[in-house]
């Protein structure tokens, strides 16, 4: 393993960091768990003429070498935050906009607490401070249903370890909201998938939302069963800096894949907005 000074350099390769486009301003695109940077492939072309665009794969992504996945380091989201800040440093970037989907929204929020001057704004798609419901808080996902998904992931893990076929899929769970949300959880190696899922669902950023001073733009699908509009409202009320909420007439948890054009337009407008 490379020594710590070179971690940034190591990450540039390990995370498949790509830089395209020309322009003064920089945008970083960060995908949600289970996919990889290819989910942005129909959104990024709208930006390459005017911006420098950076995209990368999270270390848990299926497109990264699984031997680099450190279970200790990524037991909390801090590992991912550290990765992000390290490779941005290695690229010598001191100011950028950040677009994050799902769990990457959490990573962006945490990163903005550590380095508020690095981010001109955060643009969050399908983002949430906590995914599961908790008392009066509506996260969108029923913990009991999530347990069902975890059970399947665990059975996959056991099958995989024993040399059998991991046959369980999120789509087997009767809850329709979870079917879509968990789809990407089953695109990783079973042990990594289970670990990532536990990390993401244990994460609770509700109490630190107030520490974020960076402007936050929330893009919300009008119909997203797993991250409902109530979550966006919650964030708007609790975030410490200026917050903008943008509703899109899109469906589902991955609007940048199912309807890339409205998402790209929304991001364009939010980038130009003055705070």
């Amino acid at each position, binding site marked *: 393993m490379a020594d710590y000074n070179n971690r940034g350099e190591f990450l540039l390769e390990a995370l498949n960091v790509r830089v395209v486009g020309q322009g003064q301003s920089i945008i970083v695109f960060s995908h949600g768990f289970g996919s990889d940077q290819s989910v942005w492939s129909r959104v990024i072309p709208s930006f390459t003429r005017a911006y420098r665009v950076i995209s990368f794969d999270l270390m848990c992504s299926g497109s990264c070498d699984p031997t680099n996945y450190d279970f200790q380091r990524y037991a909390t989201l801090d590992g991912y935050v550290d990765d992000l800040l390290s490779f941005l440093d290695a690229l010598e970037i001191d100011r950028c906009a950040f677009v994050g989907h799902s769990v990457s929204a959490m990573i962006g929020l945490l990163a903005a607490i550590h380095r508020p001057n690095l981010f001109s704004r955060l643009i969050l798609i399908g983002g949430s401070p906590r995914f599961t419901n908790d008392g009066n808080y509506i996260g969108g996902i029923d913990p009991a249903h999530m347990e069902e998904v975890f059970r399947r992931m665990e059975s996959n893990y056991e099958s995989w370890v024993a040399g059998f076929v991991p046959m369980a899929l999120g789509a087997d769970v009767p809850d329709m909201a979870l079917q879509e949300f968990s789809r990407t959880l089953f*695109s990783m190696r079973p042990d990594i998938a289970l670990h990532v899922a536990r990390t993401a669902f244990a994460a609770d950023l509700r109490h630190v939302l107030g520490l974020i001073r960076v402007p936050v733009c929330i893009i919300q699908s009008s119909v997203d069963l797993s991250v409902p509009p109530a979550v966006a409202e919650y964030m708007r009320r609790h975030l410490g800096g200026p917050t903008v909420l943008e509703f899109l007439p899109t469906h589902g948890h991955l609007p940048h894949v199912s309807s890339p054009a409205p998402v790209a337009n929304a991001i364009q407008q939010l980038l130009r907005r003055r705070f």
Partner: protein
Amino acid sequence: MAATTVSKVPNFHDMLPDAIMSNIFSLVTDTRTRNAMSLVCLKWCKLERSTRKSLALRGNIRDLNQVPVCFQAINNLDLSCLSPWGHPLLESSSNPSLLAKLLSHAFPSVVSLTIYARSPLTLHFLAPEWPKLSHVKLVRWHQRFNAPIGYDFFALFEHCPSLSSIDLSHFYCWTEDLPTAFELYPSIAASLSHLNLLVGHSFTEGYKSHELLSITSACPNLSQLLATCVFDHRFLGFVGDETLLSIASNCPRLSLLHLADSTALSSNSSRADPNKNDEGYASEDARISPTALGDFFESLPLLEELVLDVGNNVRDTWPALELLNSKCPRLKSLKLGQLHGICREIDSSMPAAGVALWKGLESLSIKNSADLTDSALIAISLGCSNLTKFEVQGCNKITKMGMQIFARVLQKTLVDVRISSCKYLNTVCSLQALEPIRDRIQRLHVDCVWESVEQYSQDHEIRGEKEASLKKKAKCCDGSGNGFSSCSDTWTKLKYLSLWIAAGELLNPIRLAGLENCPILEEIQIKVVGDCRNQQKPVFMAEFGLNSLVNYPQLSRMHFDCGDAIGFALTAPRGYADLSLWERFYLNGIENLNLKELNYWPPQDMDVHQRSLSLPAAGLLSQCRSLRKLFIHGTANEHFMSFFLKIPTLRDVQLREDYYPAPENDTTSEMRVDSCYRFQDALNRRHIPD
């Protein structure tokens, strides 16, 4: 004396002189046999290496500097499958001309080359190294490189004056590229004898009439021409009478001619062709008249193989076909698409006419001929008495009766039959119709349409009981003369089976339908076509039925093509199944087959242009413990590729995105897999060819 004879063991090496050994080795072509021979001893290894003529290089582009130099006699070199597949071969390295020289030094005698030419630069560096090239096949499924028209070919034409054969059937370029290049290099064009421009529908609409004329007038010595073109007169540059006649007069030496409409190449995707009306006629007629067709045939006396796959109707063609018979005596193979009236009916006073007159014909394929009737079919079987290969597609008037008599008449010669998209020939009928040749047929295609399977299997059981009781009385079981010749449905000589099946249908009924026993079947091709998006979740149907193929004990090679099954990858709306469920459904059971070689096309999500392996697919495929070769025609992420390392005998894996347009962003996942392999398999270190 006894002592000396005992100690003197006859030694192969001493018995046969080197020259003879060398000749013997040169005659062996099978790669695995050659590999085995080279392991016998050092002398045999050297001899094998120095006599091998054909090599396909596999291995990683990063290691190109370690290319083996012992294969000095290679004439035919395939560089199109280097890993990562489709990667720019030389352009990505720091010293491309050095690499080119290394390749030419390692393979100095190459005259036939297959290469993935991602950009013109590849040939720019390589063509000068092999000036004696006579045959080149270019492969490119990626977007055309942004270069001036014809630029892809300039380096090749400039440096290889002996070029006589070009194959562009897997090469995406514009139709203007080649004619322009020919104009600039007329001597190359004039010496060409083989030209393959049969590109798929997704590439292009095909060559326009003026382009075909330009090409054929530049290449008068062509003896083999294959091209995709457009016959629909509503399009600019359609091929009509004049074009056909001009082609024939430009290239009178043609012995092989394929002209296929660009829509025709994709039409086996669905059983019910939307272009045809109920009668089976296309909506438009082609601008080709039977008289012109006759003149066309007359001007090509050397024709041995002809394919005219017209997308639009040509009617009453039997007079032209009669002329074809008399003017082209060498004709051995014929395929006609959308030609009607190919056979005048048998009449008690008039002899059969049209197609039904060829004794010399060995291979016949009739596609979308709307008025082909049973009696015409029978006439054909009587007239074409040497037919070994027969294909019929989309002919809605023929029935089991006609087909059965056809098979019976030709039972001595027919070994290769394809029946598809014929309304009255579902699976059971097709298989029953082929009963006369059940013990002879070697290659077969049928569509999987399961109506009447239950009825057939009930009858079959009754018949089986009768036969079982008869068997007790009679001694002979497979009586050749009587009607109980097949006590169970045994296809004794069948080696290759091809199936078409609609998305969502099961495979299990195949045994009941009549393909119960195929003792020597070694290769199977399954094509799944359809829209998975609107179908119910395949959750209650646990599996497609690959398990039912366990009954074919020799099955070792499979092509499983779900590439035309369309579904949702990540964006399935609420309540709809996504492709991971479908892959689980389709591949469940594959681990029970003893496959050695598998080509798999994952289902695709057309909206995001994604054909990618899902978790259950990766898991199921990795359970095929006897696999030696695995080729996935799509993408797979690194986590899933790592599943395949569990297969102990796996020697060769590649992700081949051979569909247009191939994804531009190459992942680096595959390069890393190769490094795992080299680490794992010492045998693979010396680029063992395919």
